[in-house]
């Protein structure tokens, strides 16, 4: 059954409910200990009421005028094979995933290698970016991300002149991520960008969506978003960013080299063996719509690929 917005418990309420349960636990344990003394002064910790975290976006459409997908759809229909290959099971399997403490090690061909914790990442100016996400499977969404340009982080660590590519790695934790026990793939998840793609202003590290921190199923606490590429390039739950000289081999390139190339730019002219890339289904819409070259960001990014044959460098 569809859950109406009004039926979803706001985060600050359920958080306080948890606090409540916790304090009841403390209370019970406490009263057992002190019952002999008949103390009635076990403090009932008043839960801190946090600011409302109901999903909110600054804009209601993308720059082409298409409406945002709902928070429910975005957070309940997710490809995250580390948890499950079933898109609708991910949110349940990921709900207890620990995102704190977290560390992203930025290393490799840089002048100032640095390990960022979550607070460090949140120090970058966070902004909302409404992007289309086009999955290689032929469906798409419009998502209001919160994040910051990857370029801002890369400028801090200063890539050396030998750095040509950026290699990203997801956390490897098969206990928390049951899908990583599957031997069909070489874990951990790896992705890569050419340095100029990584430095492009559209490329962001996302920490939230719809005004809220990312949920585990969406790649919490920090994930890549490159809106002109197929969705699988947007590596989730990143723990490692390396500047390298050679083109990295992504998990999908290793799994099926004829199907997934390094670039994976959205391109209706480059067919995939299974899914039509000429059209797509926008989640929530009945009829298919034409897929746009570079997912509609042609003006911004086409220059990156000047002179390249896109059907060869797919």
């Amino acid at each position: 059954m569809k859950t109406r917005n009004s039926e979803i418990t706001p985060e600050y309420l359920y958080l306080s409910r948890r606090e409540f349960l916790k304090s009841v636990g403390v209370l019970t344990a406490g009263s057992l200990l002190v019952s002999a003394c008949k103390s009635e002064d076990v403090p009932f910790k008043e839960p801190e009421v946090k600011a409302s975290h109901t999903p909110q976006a600054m804009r209601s459409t993308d720059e082409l005028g298409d409406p945002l997908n709902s928070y429910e759809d975005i957070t309940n229909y997710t490809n995250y094979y580390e948890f499950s290959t079933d898109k609708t099971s991910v949110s349940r399997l990921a709900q207890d995933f620990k995102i704190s403490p977290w560390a992203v090690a930025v290393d490799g061909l840089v002048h100032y290698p640095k390990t960022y914790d979550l607070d460090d990442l949140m120090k970058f100016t966070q902004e909302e970016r409404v992007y289309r996400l086009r999955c290689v499977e032929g469906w798409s969404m419009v998502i209001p991300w919160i994040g910051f340009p990857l370029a801002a982080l890369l400028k801090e660590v200063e890539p050396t002149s030998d750095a040509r590519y950026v290699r990203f790695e997801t956390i490897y934790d098969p206990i928390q991520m049951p899908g990583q026990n599957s031997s069909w793939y070489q874990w951990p998840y790896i992705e890569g960008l050419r340095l100029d793609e990584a430095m492009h202003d559209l490329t962001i590290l996302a920490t939230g969506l719809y005004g809220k921190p990312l949920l585990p199923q969406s790649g919490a606490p920090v994930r890549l978003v490159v809106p002109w590429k197929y969705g699988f390039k947007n590596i989730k739950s990143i723990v490692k960013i390396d500047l390298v000289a050679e083109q990295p081999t992504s998990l999908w390139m290793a799994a099926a080299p004829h199907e997934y190339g390094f670039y994976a730019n959205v391109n209706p002219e480059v067919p995939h063996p299974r899914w039509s890339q000429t059209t797509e289904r926008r989640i929530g819409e009945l009829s298919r719509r034409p897929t746009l070259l570079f997912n509609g960001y042609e003006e911004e990014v086409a220059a990156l690929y000047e002179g390249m044959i896109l059907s060869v460098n797919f």
Partner: protein
Amino acid sequence: MVWIRNKWHLLVTHLGAMLPLAVLLFDWYMGDLTANPIRAATLRTGKSALVLLMLLLACTPLNTFLGLSWVLPLRKWLGIYASFYAGIHFAIFAGLDYGFDLVLLRDAIFKKRYAIAGFASGIILLALAITSTHGWKERLGNRWKQLHRLVYLAASLAVVHYIWLAKSDLGEPLLYSAIVVLLLILRIPHISRLGRRLRLFLTRKIIYPPRIMFH
């Protein structure tokens, strides 16, 4: 009541075969079919057709090896329902997903190997469903049996369709394929003869244990 006592297998077959459709319609109505209901409905009807095909292929070996002759009359309906779900599967794909856009459909079907395999399987199932009636059986005589052996091809194409559709994780498609391969192996004359004789020996209907004979 007499009808139910004599034909309860058939009744269970009808009810069981309609169940996936009922659940699908219910889930659709309740909005419980993921954020991408067309895709979910396509996958579910495809899987229903595949499961029904495997049940159909299991009937003959169940009779040969276990002597369950009452499953034989169910084959016709299992086949019809498999074709029925394959038809809905295709109708959702062509109608709901592609809005009967023939230009898009031409590319979606004939440029993807998985779609070609599935389409061919569906055409065969349609032909077999049409000729499953008593009238066609009479009209075709001996050739009817030969024609209906094409269900082996349809089932094989269906699992190939499924394998080619999978990304890299072939676990489930390979499981279905293995079942189909096993059910086809059990039909090889030497093996089914051996199975039949083994069954008769174990149930003491013949006194000599079976030997593998090549003649």
